[in-house]
């Protein structure tokens, strides 16, 4: 276990000053995610334009440094991507948190990958994996399931 790996500078900085912590005006997709064990909640909003590109993405909610940083970095990276690109990034991220040592997708730039890899520290803390993945699962729901509420406990 290594706290320094979990609480890296980027995580602490995003946790303290989350990007896109607001509600997208004229959003056309959204979903809520909850962790009933701790009370964390997140609401993801996005605006997909006619070309199926993520014109804007934002989130509201509260949670620990890990979950806020994860949602913040996620919204930063997804903005401007097509829905297919977004799905590939999500799958890549969740795969990395679950089992893969590295990110595989070529869509992300190297420094974006570095940012995402900062969240890989949670792998050593099984109880905290849900903190890192809640916003991502919620984004999937917003895009695919017409906003079905996500719970970390099914």
């Amino acid at each position: 276990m290594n706290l320094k790996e979990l609480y890296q500078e980027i995580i602490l900085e995003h946790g303290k000053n989350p990007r896109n912590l607001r509600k997208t005006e004229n959003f056309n997709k959204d979903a809520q995610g909850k962790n009933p064990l701790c009370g964390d909640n997140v609401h993801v909003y996005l605006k997909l334009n006619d070309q199926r590109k993520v014109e804007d993405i934002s989130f509201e909610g509260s949670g620990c440094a890990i979950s806020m940083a994860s949602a913040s970095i996620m919204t930063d990276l997804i903005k401007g991507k097509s829905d297919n690109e977004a799905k590939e990034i999500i799958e890549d991220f969740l795969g990395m948190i679950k089992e893969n040592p590295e990110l595989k997708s070529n869509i992300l730039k190297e420094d974006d990958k570095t940012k995402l890899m900062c969240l890989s520290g949670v792998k050593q803390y099984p109880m905290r994996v849900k903190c890192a993945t809640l916003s991502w699962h919620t984004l999937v729901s917003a895009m695919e399931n017409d906003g079905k509420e996500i719970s970390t406990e099914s």
Partner: protein
Amino acid sequence: MNLDNIKKEFPIFDEKIQNNDLVYLDSANSSQKPKVVINRINEFYTKQFSNVGRSVHYLAVAATNLYENTRSSVQKYINAKDKNEIIFTKGATEALNLVANTLGQKYLNEGDEIILTELEHHSNYVPWHYLRKSKNIKINFAEINEAGEVPIENIEKLITPKTKVIAINHLSNVTGAILPIKEITELAHSKGIIVVVDGCQGAPHLKLDMQELDCDFYAISCHKMYGPTGLGILYGKKKWLEELPPYQGGGGMIREVKKDRITYGDLPNKYEAGTMATAQVIAFDQSIKFLESIGIENIIKHEKELIEYGQEILRKNNSVKIIGNPKNKGGVLSFTIEGVHPHDIATILDEDGVAIRAGHHCCQILHDKLEIPASARASIGVYNTKEDFDQLNESINKCKKIFDL
């Protein structure tokens, strides 16, 4: 038994937890187990095991006697009038569900009202919520004050002619407030209202005297009381347990079963359907003996000193905010740190072997009221020391450093 060396009685403190000495501050969640309890479970399974109350062979009779001995010990420990007022359940949650369910079946009618408090644990709210759905019962919540207590006036003002039940905790698992159960019961009984007490936090830390408290029901969680998991106790006044219908049906709780009719057994069997947590019940006798050997007065004194010490050092630590300041407080210290989420606090503390709880502690109503999503909670047992709080404080400082506070 002397409290100074009490940690030695708990084998877990001989273990290194991730290379650290264990600083266990999560006893409100569940207490650690003394070796007498652990050994008793082992001994029972090794040398004495049989199911209870059914067969006539030697082991079955001996096991039944041991099982019933615990019932007598519990009766004495909580000063219940009758041995049959002690019902074993799988936990305090089941005990509270039993009360809500059977009162709902026989005693409560549409439009009746129940008073809970904003301090209640979900296990003393959700079972009553079911009656909202099934019987259209109305639930009112007595409000907390600034100190995180529920003054009796806040309960009194909610009482109407339709109030049938007041269901309250004895000791809050978040603010530590100790509720004036005796006074609440006097008030309630003067108006013909039943009092149900969630005693999960009260039972391990306070003097229990059912005849003095005079409440109608009292639920106990054995694993918070230095006992095994999978076991709870419902104390209920005999007149209620006799009058109310059974909760679960099955073996052991019947008198006669015919194709066209069933009659039920007497107390306590009526409420103990199926094979019970035999080994746990028998080992719980050792938990009671352990508590008695220290003496509840000594436990109360020790825990009061300790929690006052803990409050004092955390108050001096700026950015730490303690939740609630009840005059009459038990061994629970909940807090927040401005700028650090409780989960991050708990993970960082864990790295030093400091085990606390973070979250809403099954009290979402209270956290909503306090307008915080979660809190961190340090809670104590007989084995804690001032050094544990010193370590807690040191680890909190480490946490503040990581978060640049």
